[in-house]
């Protein structure tokens, strides 16, 4: 028997679709059968496309896990539920762990404010200063390389290295 779709190759696969009232049958070759699986193996009025769903799940195995187990803070074990219930974060690390959810909560209780404008600890001040300086130096290095001023570029490169090393010992 020839394939009903291409009428060229030998039909090797028998596909039967139906819901008990209606039934359609097709005899296809392997190639055409595969195409038919990919394109159309659902009823036109089927809103719950199990194929798509399974496909998306197999593509995102992590999604399956997150749906089963809510995200937990690695330092204190809080979940977003316990935080909302208590109205408090469990530890300082929760702020980073629950990124956008934490941002939502903060924005809600702080009248849509989201950026600290006040004091910084002395240690952070030094840290931020170093980071800013590094950014500047890296930008300068790029320009110097572009204009092929290699002698000066080497000086800047050494300056960057020195700052990075000092930063490492400070835990930056």
């Amino acid at each position, binding site marked *: 028997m020839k394939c009903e779709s291409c009428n060229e190759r030998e039909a090797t696969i028998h596909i039967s679709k139906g819901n008990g009232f209606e039934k359609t049958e097709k005899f296809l070759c392997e190639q055409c059968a595969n195409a038919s699986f990919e394109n159309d193996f659902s009823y036109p009025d089927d809103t719950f496309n199990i194929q798509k769903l399974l496909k998306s799940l197999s593509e995102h195995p992590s999604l399956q896990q997150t749906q089963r187990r809510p995200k937990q803070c690695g*330092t*204190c074990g*809080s979940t977003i539920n316990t935080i909302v219930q*208590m*109205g*408090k*974060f*469990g*530890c*300082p*690390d929760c*702020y*980073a762990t629950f990124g956008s959810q*934490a941002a939502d*909560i*903060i924005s809600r*209780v*702080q*009248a849509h*404010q*989201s*950026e*600290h*404008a*006040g*004091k*910084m*600890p*002395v*240690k*952070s001040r030094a840290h*931020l200063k170093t980071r800013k300086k590094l950014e500047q130096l890296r930008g300068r290095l790029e320009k110097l390389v572009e204009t092929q001023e290699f002698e000066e570029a080497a000086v800047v490169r050494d300056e960057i290295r020195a700052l990075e090393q000092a930063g490492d010992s400070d835990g930056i």
Partner: protein
Amino acid sequence: MKSERWNRQVIVMEYSHISPWMQDVEELPVEMSTRVRLARNVSHLPFPYMMKDDGGLEPVLAKLEAVLDGYRRVEMNGLQFEDKALLVEKHLVSPLFTKRGLLSYISEDESVSIMVNEEDHLRIQTMGVGIPMIDLYRKADAIDDMLESEVDYAFDEKYGYLTACPTNVGTGLRASVMLHLPALTFGSRIQTLAANLSRFGFTLRGIYGEGSVPLGHIYQLSNQLTLGQTEEEIINNLDELKERIVEEEMEMRSWLESEHLLEVKDSVYRSYGLLKHAYRMPLKEAAKCLSDLKLGTDLKLIEHEDFQFQKWIQLIQPAFIKMRLNEKDKEITSLEHAVEEERAALMRQLLGGE
């Protein structure tokens, strides 16, 4: 051993006196004491409510004690209920702290207290009367810098100082001033005022903070928001608002004087009579009477030398009265009655009654 000795010292020193910083202050008509507190946390440690025992804070405390020269260490679990209540009445610790707090460091003149494991790991608090709020903040700020040299604070570039409750995140700053507002209360303006304030991120509450009832027409004005503004901005805004409220209260007082003089005089002298001659005084009544007397002296309707509203309001609090009872060592059948009798006796004595 160390803490026991310290605690005993606290008991001896604190039982006989009002905090030194509050002694001999000059009283203003409306504005009373001011407080500033900073909430700080140690990085990567669970917040106090998630901690078992001291949860690894001991090494941090050892470092802090190295810089906290002249501070007394007061451990909560070494204290009796009355001792704790006394600390609350002096505003040295919060009511929440007496239930769950670990210990506090209190400066010699009791104008600074650092609570360990209140809602946050550290809460630095400075208090004063007649001192500009910004100066109180600078004092807390300097202590903060000193502590930070020993401890790694939980700080985030975006959110600032990280705190257990998101209502404190950012600056961790809560500044508050106590205001005596009898005229605004009498004119029922206080509710509208409170509602309007909250729209601008400020709140009016009772004298012992969240959830406490206003006593003797005394309210605490404080900032609600801690993020998005610098410490100076928060304090300047609060200062400005305070001035406006003081102005409104003074306006209402003039209105009272011109429109309701007899009524005011009547309540001032009634209260004076009660304070001078009553033999039993519940706290609320005593506070209300003292408030009337304060209004009376401010409006110059009555004169009384040595009248110190702020100090006396503290002296009538339950733990202060119980302390006086303990000193007298007399037999008590009903504590409630004994306290009310002692309070009345104290008032008679202070006002020169019988």
